[in-house]
Each structure stands twice: as C-alpha cells, then as structure tokens.
C-alpha cells in the first residue's frame, strides 16, 4: 500500500520589504527530498481553487506554496472582497510581486526536504507573473497559464499597474511552458504567436500548447469557462514539464 499523505497549512513568510505575508503550503509527508513549486493565484485571488492547486502539486510530490498577493490590501478578507479591493487600488505592483515570490522561493529552499529546484506556475494575471518570475528569480521552470499582457499593451485609461514584458524576453532564465485557449482575447492567439516568435528569436527553451474550444480560465472547474479536455491535457503537460525540469538534485 502506497502511503499517500500531504500536510496543508497556512504559514506566514517574509515577502517584499521583509513584510510578513500570508501563504498556503502543502507538502508530501513521506520525508523524501523534492523540488518546490510556487503557485501564483489568479486575479480573483487567493481562493479555495488556488489552494486546491497547491494540494495537487503536493500530491504530485512537490513542496508547494501559494502566497496571498493581496495580503496587504485585504488581510483575512474573503477572497472575492480582497480581489475587489486589489482591483480598486490598481492591482499588484510588479516589484512587490517579485519580492513576495522571492520570499516564497526562499521559504521552499529552506525546507529540510528541499532539493533546491523550484518551479513557478500562474493562472490568469498569475500567468504573466510566472513569466516575470522567470525573468527576475532563480527558478528552474515556469508555467504561464493564459497570462495577458506578457505581450500587447493594456487599453487606454487602464487603471491596473501592468506593463508588457515582451521586450525583456532575452532575460528569461528558465524553460517556459505556455498553455492557452484559442478563444481567449487576453491573451489573443495573435499575442501568443508574437510571444512564441520572441522566444524563438532569443533561442529560449519553451513549449506552447493551444486548445480549441477553450478560452480564458479553462482550468477553473467551478466556472463556465472550464473545458475538461483542455484542462486534462494541460495538467498532463504541466506534470511532464515539471518532471523534466524539476526532478533530481539541483
């Protein structure tokens, strides 16, 4: 009988500016050495769905953590209220995100079971932030699930603090997996093409998969955007990608 157990809990970690921020972690309990995964939540926030994803990675054998990126705007708030507060105040500044994600990576590497390798995965706005993490941080793999504004300019009068990252593609430090819906507008298929060309131009290691009959947020099981075929294939791609780049010692 295979022992199947994970420990999942809320922890406080040090993020940008050494602030203490809330995070949710799940870790296998078998004591083996393993890589870490930073889950970057979608724009609707640090919600039940994001925590389920963290537990999924622990079941797959990774030490996983998701930082509540809205900890400062809305500590202890309901996730939808926190997301509304963050939206009204202009979203998460990139510099603060990078500091918080760096804190999560440090926390994972300090675990006694850490192999030293860490990957990131983000959904929706977190997809763009996963790309950003691979520009700024020492990570060994990054997964961008339908992140908008890696390429493409936000609309005029746009209140959120988001700028495209395409001009920094040459700085990408980790292999990138991209998963996109062909019916998505943010990012659009044309924008995904543009990003792919940039990755090719700069000789980066990447793997893109695009799904017909899928738009934005096709992994979101509780929303009408859920697409079972895309989600099932997507999870398999993520598992294979992390196995290829995160398994073994650093």
């Amino acid at each position: 009988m295979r022992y199947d157990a994970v420990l999942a809990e809320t922890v406080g970690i040090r993020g940008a500016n050494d602030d203490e921020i809330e995070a949710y972690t799940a870790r296998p309990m078998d004591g083996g050495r393993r890589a870490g995964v930073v889950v970057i939540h979608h724009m609707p926030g640090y919600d039940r769905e994001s925590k389920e994803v963290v537990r999924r990675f622990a079941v797959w054998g990774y030490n996983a953590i998701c930082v509540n990126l809205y900890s400062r705007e809305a500590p202890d708030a309901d996730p939808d209220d926190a997301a509304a507060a963050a939206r009204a105040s202009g979203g998460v500044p990139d510099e603060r995100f990078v500091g918080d994600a760096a804190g999560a990576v440090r926390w994972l590497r300090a675990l006694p079971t850490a192999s030293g390798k860490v990957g990131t995965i983000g959904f929706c706005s977190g997809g763009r932030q996963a790309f950003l993490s691979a520009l700024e941080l020492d990570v060994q793999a990054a997964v961008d699930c339908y992140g908008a504004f890696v390429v493409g300019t936000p609309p005029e009068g746009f209140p959120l603090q988001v700028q495209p990252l395409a001009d920094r593609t040459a700085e990408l430090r980790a292999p990138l997996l991209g998963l996109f819906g062909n019916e998505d507008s943010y990012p659009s298929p044309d924008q995904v093409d543009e990003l792919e060309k940039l990755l090719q131009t700069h000789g980066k290691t990447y793997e893109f998969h695009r799904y017909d009959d899928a738009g934005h947020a096709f992994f979101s099981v509780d929303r009408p955007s859920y697409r079972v075929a895309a989600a099932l294939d997507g999870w398999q791609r993520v598992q294979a990608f992390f196995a290829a780049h995160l398994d073994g010692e650093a």
Partner: protein
Amino acid sequence: MCTYSTEKIAVTASSGKGPQGWFPLRTATVYYDHPVHAPDEHTVNIDFLNPEEGPAARVAVELSLDSARELLAALQVTVERAQHH
C-alpha cells in the same frame, strides 16, 4: 479574470448595505470580467466600496449583459425624472 478593463468613479453622499449593515460609499468600480458566482463567462460587475472600512465594506453585483443594459436604461430614466422633482 483577465480583461482587466475597469472604470472607477468616486461616490459621494451615498450609502450601501453590506454584511455588517449600512455604510457610506466612497468608490465604485465597474468592469466586464469573469464573475465569481453568476452563471456566465463574463458579466458586468460593480463593486461599491469604502476602502476606509476594509475589504468587507463592499456591495457587489454581477450582471448579465442584458441585465446591465436594462439597469442602464432604468438609471437613465430615473435620473432624468429626478431632474423634474
């Protein structure tokens, strides 16, 4: 939730009722994006907020596009009538 497009207005001399009762409103954000609860991929969402009272000081609605159009027309009619009071 990635159309990101958001209109934000200041709200004055107005109140809303949230889980903790009535509170003064300060801002409203209006956006077309994925809902948390409504059964559609995108809805017109309005958050009436008072940041001074914390994130829970919020009155939120998620409207289908048809319902949002109806609301817009009703507001138009009501505001025009109010000018004659």
